[in-house]
């Protein structure tokens, strides 16, 4: 098992009091498995991804990644974990504005120590990014930016890819095409994939589909 979440709880304290977002998440993602995570807006999908990605702490339960318990990590180990074990694709602001497309794509792979020029070349070709390598993020459309973010994550070949509505800002056709590619490339790279999406149609293409409702996972 790559990722294993058991009885994970998370609540936020706001002005109106404590809000329980996740109360008892049980979710396993196997190696090279792709899982679609759906749910209503505000149901806690992003929160779940952040916990799995070591970006935030869970209040209870355990998040085990390849045998390691994230709860035991300090900030340094969390950073190491994010650098080497996961790849994250968010809805926006994925890219480093000061680096051009080529540098953005290889950035994570180099940080993780898994840089592979040939694989990267292959990726950029397949994602249609070759003509844009020397451009800067702000000179790209939203869809192109997301493709770069996906390319960067795939280039790093992390054991687990966490993608939070990566095509949420794109039109349907483009979004579908990009995700299609992402799926097959993730399989090539041997990465497990946990993907948040609203699109049921897309969700069906993945190995498995789970729904987040009322703070719990319902299949």
């Amino acid at each position, binding site marked *: 098992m790559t990722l294993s979440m058991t009885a994970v709880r998370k609540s936020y304290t706001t002005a109106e009091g404590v809000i329980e977002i996740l109360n008892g998440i049980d979710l396993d993602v196997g190696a090279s498995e792709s899982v679609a995570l759906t749910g209503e807006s505000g149901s806690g999908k*992003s929160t779940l991804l*952040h916990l799995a*990605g070591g*970006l*935030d702490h869970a209040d209870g339960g355990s998040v085990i990644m390849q045998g390691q318990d994230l709860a035991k990590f300090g*900030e*340094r180990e969390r*950073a*190491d*974990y*994010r*650098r*080497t074990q996961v790849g*994250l694709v*968010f*809805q*926006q*602001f*994925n*890219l*480093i*504005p*000061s*680096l051009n497309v080529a*540098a953005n794509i*290889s*950035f*994570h792979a*180099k*940080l*993780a120590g898994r840089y592979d020029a040939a694989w990267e070349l292959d990726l950029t070709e397949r994602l249609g990014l070759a003509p844009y390598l020397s451009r800067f993020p*702000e000179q790209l459309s939203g869809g192109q930016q997301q493709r770069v973010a996906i390319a960067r994550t795939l280039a790093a070949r992390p054991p687990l890819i966490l993608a*939070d*509505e990566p095509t*949420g*800002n794109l039109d349907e056709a483009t979004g579908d095409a990009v995700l299609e590619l992402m799926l097959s490339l993730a399989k090539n790279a041997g990465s497990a994939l946990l993907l948040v999406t609203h699109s049921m149609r897309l969700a069906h293409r993945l190995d498995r589909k789970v729904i987040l409702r009322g703070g719990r996972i319902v299949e």
Partner: protein
Amino acid sequence: MRFALAALLSHWRRKPLQLLTLVMGIALATALWSGVQAINAEARASYTRAASVLEQGALQQVVSKGGGGISIDTYGKLRRAGWNLSPVIEGTVRFGASWIKLVGIDPTTMPREGQVASITDGSDISSFFSAPGQLVVSAATARKLRNATDMRLKISENVPDDAAFVDISVADRLLDARGKINRLVVASEQRPGLDPIDQVAPETMLRENTDKPDVARLTDSFHLNLTAFGFLSFVVGLFIVYSATGLTFEQRRGTFRTLRSLGISLPALTTMLVVELAAFSLFSGIIGVILGYFIASALMPGVATTLKGLYGANVPGSLSIRPEWWVSGLAIALGGTAISSVRSLWRVWSLPILAAAQPRAWQRASAKTLAYQATAGGGLLLLSAVLAVTGSGIVIGFGVLGALLLGCALLLPGLLAISLASAERVSRTALTQWFWADTRLQLPGLSLALMALLLALSANIGVGTMVSSFRLTFLGWLDQRLAAELYVTAKDEDQATRLREWLPQHSTAVLPIWSVEGDVFGDQLQIFGVADDPTYRDHWPLIVADDNAWDEVASGKGALINEQMWRRGTAKPGQTIAMPGGWDATVVGIYSDYGNPKGQVIVGIDALVAHYPDVSKLRYGIRVPPESAPTLRQQLVSEFGLPETAIIDQISLKQQSRAVFEQTFAVTGALNVLTLAVAGFAMFSSLLTLSGIRLPQLAPVWAMGIRRRNLALYEVARTLALWLATFIAAIPVGLGLAWVLLAIVNVEAFGWRLPMTVFPLDWLWLGAVALVAAILSILVPVRRLATINPADLLRIFANER
């Protein structure tokens, strides 16, 4: 309308630090500018006051053509011709330890406009005449003179410090003028149909009343200097205001949009913003003027010392409050805010209000902008070089300075961008590559602050180099020039005669220090006589000299002139100058004469005595073996009853000169530090501003596994790198500045040119100060980053904004 204003203003409650930055920016800019203006106004007012009181500046004057003074006969001739004139005998005398400018007047003939009221009012006019005489002085002067003279002292607040009115006969006696009148004051009311003065007495001429006193003209360059510094600080302060308004407007874009959609018209919105800015700038302006007053008060004593040391100008060490500063200070605050916020206001007006807030667009500046800027900077540098080569005059000198500084400042961002790009190219790891690239991304947002920093640092280096070079030259020069071991001043001519007989047996050499004042080529200057002595041949520093200059001087045919006279083009080597009293001398050499605002001529002592038999022979330099100087001093006191203050040894004279020197540049030093502080604050406010829009740039790096702490460290390193680069750039700029100051401005302002010496250790010191300032400027923004809540970083990625 009210709800709209409340909505606009609520921004400041959420961002108190931004408000502080804005207020501080305006206040600092106003403070330094109005402080410097206050100093200048005070000094100028004092010159005018002194001139109108001491020199009867409002009235025309008759002076002698040759500069030698007007005889009683001439005066009588003019009076008989019907002219209503009043004689004045004036000069400087020593009372104990202080030198006093004595103005001897005749109150019975002095026209009312030229009178100091308190002399002639009522009963005690008789005490002005009767022996042993009465000195009319200021209260401060009276305190100094209380035990130094047996004359009566009368206090009049109209009289400037270190000056005294006396009866003309007393002045004649004290100054040993022997009836030579310095000038005749011409009453404004004269009988009609008089023969012109230069017909009645061709040996005299009429001097028009000048609207600007001599000393005011002399000190112009000093005040221009201060103004330049004030302006520099003002510009640096405006940089802060510019970046602060830029940010607040950008951040309130959402509010603007909401207000507009609620039916507030664009003109109404703009009006509200203008009113808001005006209110802020007035409020900050008041703080600034108050601050400026304190700065000026703190600097004023130093300025007074400088003006006295350099120009002999008497300026009070305190500041009076003038309503016009308030007005001009507030006007400066308003004007400055207007200039620096016009761009932001324009954007509110012109950009589609429905466009989303673009915090990054605000800091983005294209390579094209940098190229334009650099071109403008290059153009200014060229202009500066052309001006330096072709122009002359103090204003051109400052033009060269301004163009040089501004040109370099404009070039800086471009140069930094190029250096950062090359650093990025050669870096090996992804992280270092990102580090340099991201530093370059910050450049547009920081460039104004970096430019301000460059200005402040190079001003520091430049002025520091100038002062240190000057100090080195000055001290060396002092060592040579003050060769005699003791300097003695006799009480009167009798005592001087006895000294002349006694001293040769008790010393190696006696060097008379005798001088007269007179006109040469229309300049009032001092003429000194020197003995033919090896002391001069060995020690006196000559810049330009004929082979046998000293022989020529000793023979009475040659004259030496000081550097000031030469640089100002009054005379040059080989030229024959017409000396007052109708004789000629040929310029055979030039000597440096630092600290003297006026021209000076040195001739042989015999020639001096021959042509000016009335010269006062009171002062002497005495050469003795250094170890016997104290004994000789003792002997002089016991044998001649000379007061301690009449004998100065070389060491204390040097000390005094050094003290005056250090005081002279204390003001410049203080202004330097203030400018640097303002620039440091500019950097702080820019970094703070940037830190607000930095999160989206840093969040992805954090998500990919770089800790917040390390991100914070990179931020520090980034700031330090930019400071360091700016500091390194400031060194050549500062040296260029020093060169302009030494080779152009000083020559124009003071009439002397100094060799430039470089003091790298001073830079190290400045570098250390800059380093501390850099760390201080990044501390707050970086602490925020290091401890930021991950939730804040995560929010960046969610599409909920």
